[in-house]
């Protein structure tokens, strides 16, 4: 006969293993989803396969571990993504949550790649350069500098 203590410990073990499995599957599933959506939304670009997978891994790490996106703390003025604040952070953005997520991933991937740096040339292979971090210098690929006549 199984003791009550063993039952409780066994239950905790099952829940724990289940939780870990779900967590792991969640990570794997999310990574696959990111890879798939990038390929689907950017099907007219030549994406570096390895780079897409590396980006997806980094994005999943950012979501689960919150190691990479220190710049998320930069929300500063806008409170984008903050669930509270109904009165002071009202938005009229009509996109669904799914579309918002996809747009955010595509934006992040392109900013993390050489695409804009190389002039948005669709004939070139898009390579993942490194997870976009605007706390690094000069991260706006469209900015043009002041030219002072000598």
């Amino acid at each position: 006969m199984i003791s009550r203590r063993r039952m409780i410990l066994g239950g905790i073990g099952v829940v724990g293993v289940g939780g870990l499995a779900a967590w792991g599957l969640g990570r794997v599933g999310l990574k696959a989803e990111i890879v798939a959506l990038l390929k689907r939304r950017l099907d007219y670009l030549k994406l570096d396969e390895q780079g897409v997978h590396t980006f997806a891994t980094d994005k999943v790490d950012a979501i689960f571990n919150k190691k990479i996106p220190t710049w998320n703390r930069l929300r500063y003025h806008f409170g984008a993504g903050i669930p509270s604040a109904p009165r002071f952070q009202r938005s009229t953005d009509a996109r669904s949550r799914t579309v918002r997520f996809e747009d955010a991933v595509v934006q992040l991937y392109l900013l993390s790649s050489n695409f804009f740096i190389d002039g948005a040339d669709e004939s070139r292979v898009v390579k993942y350069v490194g997870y976009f971090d605007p706390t690094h210098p000069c991260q706006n690929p469209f900015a043009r500098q002041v030219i002072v006549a000598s």
Partner: protein
Amino acid sequence: MSDHYDVVIVGTGFASSFFLMRYLEHAPDACRILVLERGNEDTKAWQLANGKNTSIDPDTLIENQTPAKEWYTSPGFGGNSKCWMGGTTRMMPGDFKLHSRYGVGMDWPVSYDDLEGHYGTVEQVMLVAGPAVTPMPRSRPLPLVPHRFSDPDVLLNQHFPEGWYPMSTARASVYTGQRGICCASGSCGTCPVDAKFTIQNGLARIYQDPRVTLRLRAEVQTVETSGGIATAVNALREGREERYAGDLIVLGASALFNPHILLRSGFTHPLIGRRLHEQMPIYVTLDLKGVKAYTGSTVLSGLGYLFYDGAHRADHAACMIETWSSPFAYRPDDALRIERGRWNERMMLGFLFDDLPSERNRVTVSAHDPSRVNVYFDDYSEYAKKAADRIPQMIDKLAEALPIERIVGSTMGSTAAHIQGTVVMGDDPATSVVDRHLIHHDYRNLMVLGASAYPTASPAYPTLTVSALSLWAADHIIGARNA
């Protein structure tokens, strides 16, 4: 422990530092000035290494009763000069005369002409970049060439030459010898190239003056008074209670902490802590046809004055519009237009409306922990909201210059990061706490500097006026002392 100084200054941000700068120009060699700063030094290297601009979590200092409305502050040497974005617009002359010109709000007890020369001095010290022609009169040109417009700014400027201007900003447009050139990274809070003016990179020298003693990690708790004068400040420093006596006491601890210190000290004017306000910020994203945005050379590249000053202010708020040229850090999901070949045919505009202060919005001392500031914000005024309702008409006007395809969305910001109005200035002691020189009406050796003195908001960024007011106040106190 007790020590006596000629001047005791609380805080090391814009208000305190510009006051100290001017005061030192006229102070005798034997003058002893103590400056107390709550936070640590938090050098630029430390900020970059840690990805933040203060080693003190501001949330530990504030009890925010309305968390949806955020209030930004950056404790430590240099104060909010560490976290600001470097916007240095002057107020318009009409901002000072809101009541007499438009019948709403309050007039300031100082005028644009009173501050004009001081504005110019601050612009020189901060090495402000901006246009030769600005919407308000000026006696001196800005020291640095303007930043480059984005493409939408160019169109707006061509169509509205007297309504759209390059940004006036303390983000350097050329190398200054100490600061890098702004390259529109868009992460101004910890600017990675140190392009914006800060007290640390621009005025640290005044704290090395032999007449000045700087004490870090000194949390000022109260101002002591006796016989109608302020006599000392009491601070907690590294676990010890310390008392610093002074002939002149100067609070420059921001619009959150100035009233907090006064209230903890037992000052009882009914307006202390009241009238907390800032601009109401609304951000609008627009899709454009064939025009590429985000191409300016700095994070905010253009300023629109089309809906700022005018007769409409009798009915609804003034509005200043800003063009965002690098919104990627703040808009991680919709800065780009996710359409093939049209990635940056999208622009973001910020609409800043001046709010009419309400006594319901306030700063008090936390009942649970007196060392913390309790902040309550009920709402913006109907005056500001009425103006915000006109954004669609404003965009129709902008569409005369811009090929706007559609309005993607709008968001009300959680903060404009401009905290103002909690120790209001005025000529009448019944309706103000400090006078036009920022001297307490009842305690004539106690000054309260900074945006806490603002009677009304103005859509303009407040820092240049904060700094100019400190020069104005310092000039007055120096003149009074010499007389």
